[in-house]
């Protein structure tokens, strides 16, 4: 992996050398030296899992010493697993649930946890568990068709509501409910598909992807759904925004360079820079709690695993 900083440094050196009319040999020498130095500074990606199974939606759990992720565990079951970062052990997070499980989310204080469960009454229902009350469950059933779904769950920073993607007529919309799965509020009502909400750390804004104006781009709106602004305008999809812990940056997945790669931009949408550069897939960015690394699902040699990678300046 070569980050864009490395490429930029190499180009700067090349231009300087050209201006000074130095020899090709000198140019090459400095480029190689620059690449070597850059790679020495940037940490190598840290591979966290090694089973190669298909994975989705990783997220740091409260406390930061564990990761929850969705994994295609066996052919006919997708489950949520917990990866303990201190010893590398893994365990199902909801072992008593035989259904497909997706997209775990946690309240900041760790009291509540939530996930999507496949069911017959609805295709995917929202499950909210109170871990301080013997995992007492609250279920939100998406209204309308029996095939209704919820996906991509996020707790608000104050821990009072859950924001998610809700199946709706003509498209998908961003919505929220309280911790009892009640008081449904629809936050978007646009054409097209609205997906992958991410809430700013101060709880005031929601970044999300929308196809309201064509292919997926990233938008931001106030926490109540008002004041929608467009952050990206790419000819191909920009998806899965993830707000950094300090609120200053947003990571996202984009296909603007031909395949799934991770990017980071300022929270106002400017200065997008490429984080990954690999012919296979890099996707599902989530920030490490200290904001220094991104947790991702990367496909390498046909295997999908969790990695921690550096975030460029």
């Amino acid at each position: 992996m070569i980050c864009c900083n490395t490429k930029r440094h190499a180009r700067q050196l090349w231009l300087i050398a050209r201006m000074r009319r130095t020899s090709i040999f000198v140019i090459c020498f400095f480029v190689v030296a620059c690449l070597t130095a850059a790679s020495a500074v940037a940490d190598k990606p840290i591979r966290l899992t090694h089973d190669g199974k298909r994975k989705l939606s990783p997220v740091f759990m409260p406390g930061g010493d564990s990761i929850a992720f969705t994994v295609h565990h066996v052919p006919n079951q997708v489950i949520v697993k917990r990866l303990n970062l201190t010893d590398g052990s893994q365990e199902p997070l909801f072992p008593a649930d035989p259904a497909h499980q997706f997209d775990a989310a946690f309240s900041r204080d760790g009291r509540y946890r939530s996930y999507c469960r496949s069911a017959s009454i609805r295709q995917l229902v929202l499950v909210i568990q109170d871990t301080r009350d013997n995992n007492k469950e609250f279920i939100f059933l998406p209204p309308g068709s029996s095939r209704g779904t919820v996906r991509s769950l996020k707790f608000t920073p104050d821990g009072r509501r859950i924001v998610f993607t809700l199946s709706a007529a003509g498209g998908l919309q961003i919505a929220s409910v309280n911790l009892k799965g009640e008081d449904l509020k629809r936050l978007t009502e646009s054409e097209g598909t609205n997906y992958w909400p991410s809430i700013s750390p101060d709880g005031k804004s929601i970044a999300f992807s929308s196809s309201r104006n064509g292919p997926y781009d990233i938008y931001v709106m106030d926490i109540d759904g008002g004041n929608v602004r467009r952050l990206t305008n790419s000819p191909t999809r920009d998806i899965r925004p993830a707000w950094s812990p300090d609120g200053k940056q947003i990571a996202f997945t984009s296909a603007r360079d031909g395949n799934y790669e991770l990017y980071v931009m300022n929270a106002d949408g400017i200065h997008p820079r490429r984080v990954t550069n690999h012919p296979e897939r890099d996707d599902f960015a989530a920030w490490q709690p200290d904001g220094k690394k991104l947790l991702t699902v990367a496909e390498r040699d046909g295997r999908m695993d969790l990695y921690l990678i550096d975030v460029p300046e």
Partner: protein
Amino acid sequence: MLGIGRFRNRDCQGISRRAFLQVGATLPFVCGFSTLGGQISQAADAAKAKSVLVVWLGGGPSHLDLFDPKPKASSQFRGPFATIDTHLPGVSFTELLPKLAARSKNFSLIRTNINYEGGHRPASSIMLTGSVAPDGGEDRGGKPGQYPPNYGSILARHRATSELPGFVSLARGPIGDGVGPIFGHGGGTWGKGHDAFMLSCSDSGEVSIPALQLPEGLSPMRLTDRRTVLASLDQMRRTVDSAEFDKWDGVYKRAYALLTASDASKAFDLTQESDSTRNTYGHTSFGQSALLGRRLVEQGVPYVQVNWSQYVEVFFPFSDYGWDTHSDNFGLMADWHGPLLDRVLSALLDDMQDRGLLDSTLVICMGEFGRTPRINNIGSRDHWPSCYFSVWAGGGVAPGRVIGESDANGEHPLTDPIAPAMVGTTILELAGMSTARRAEMGVLSGGRVIDDLL
């Protein structure tokens, strides 16, 4: 890398105690396998396609979100994916298929397939047999055994390749939906003896035979000794229900003969492939199954069906992520279905080409129907048999063509529709079965070839 029924013979820790059929030279050779390794029957010699490999996308993949995008349609139709150029002038795919777009000169695309049914099982039976079941189909009380034979069953019978299965289907079990299996996946009116030989391939490349369950008292380890096996079977024959035993015995003998033949066993052993090749296909069940399919073709199996999943459904508790995306179509397509199809089908086409197999192998990728161009009331897409796609490569197919044009919203063909019988007729014709031969066998004798493909 191979086991029978629920048994596995190798895992990450090495050799399992439950391994019982270690394929290779150490096993007894109970029956001859004279047709393997390029010794294909004379019937294949005249065929442009010595083998047929069908990549079956059960559940109905969305044509608008893959091979027939409609970016100018309204948001009620077009979906959220951008389009990308292919190497064919004026032809675009969605951005979910960058690898296939880059290989668009290596295959041809039909954009105007049609089907006559909107239910998974009847539509699948029609697409896999080219004929409408006389009893109205699985959803109208149809019964197995009353269906026309699958193209694979027809070709297997035409080629008549002794013990080597002529029709192998790769899935965890009989393919179908939550209601039941697809009756047109098998021998139909010709009987169960013409059914597909099912093999299952895991994401780690382990191969097993899902239909086989070892009878009580017959341990896996004992199966490696031919005399013990025969003695055990004789004993069992006297103690269990004869009809049930005969059914199991027939499958078992076929399987045992296949697995213990050294040439055949090589076909199942994916460890003989380089890491690079296995990685290129990707370590998913679908990816490794496609690689296994290529190996079976290489060994001379006339007809192989590589199935995306056993069940068409995505989210139901039993299901294994099929293409029936009534819910969350756009999330699923971006997360999983689009990238996986792009990777595996591209790898398969490249690999077949690199090995010189593509000229003599007809590769077809299709499902039973497409999905509704109009987005449904939960932001997804439902079944749509009125217009959808199929991908064709090799085996006498002219590459780099797009056949047929759909209307502005992808709802109906603007040009001549391609009926299921035309699909079947073209497959069998390229596989060397003339109209006269098909008439002789009583199958698809009135069908028309898709001339634009040739």
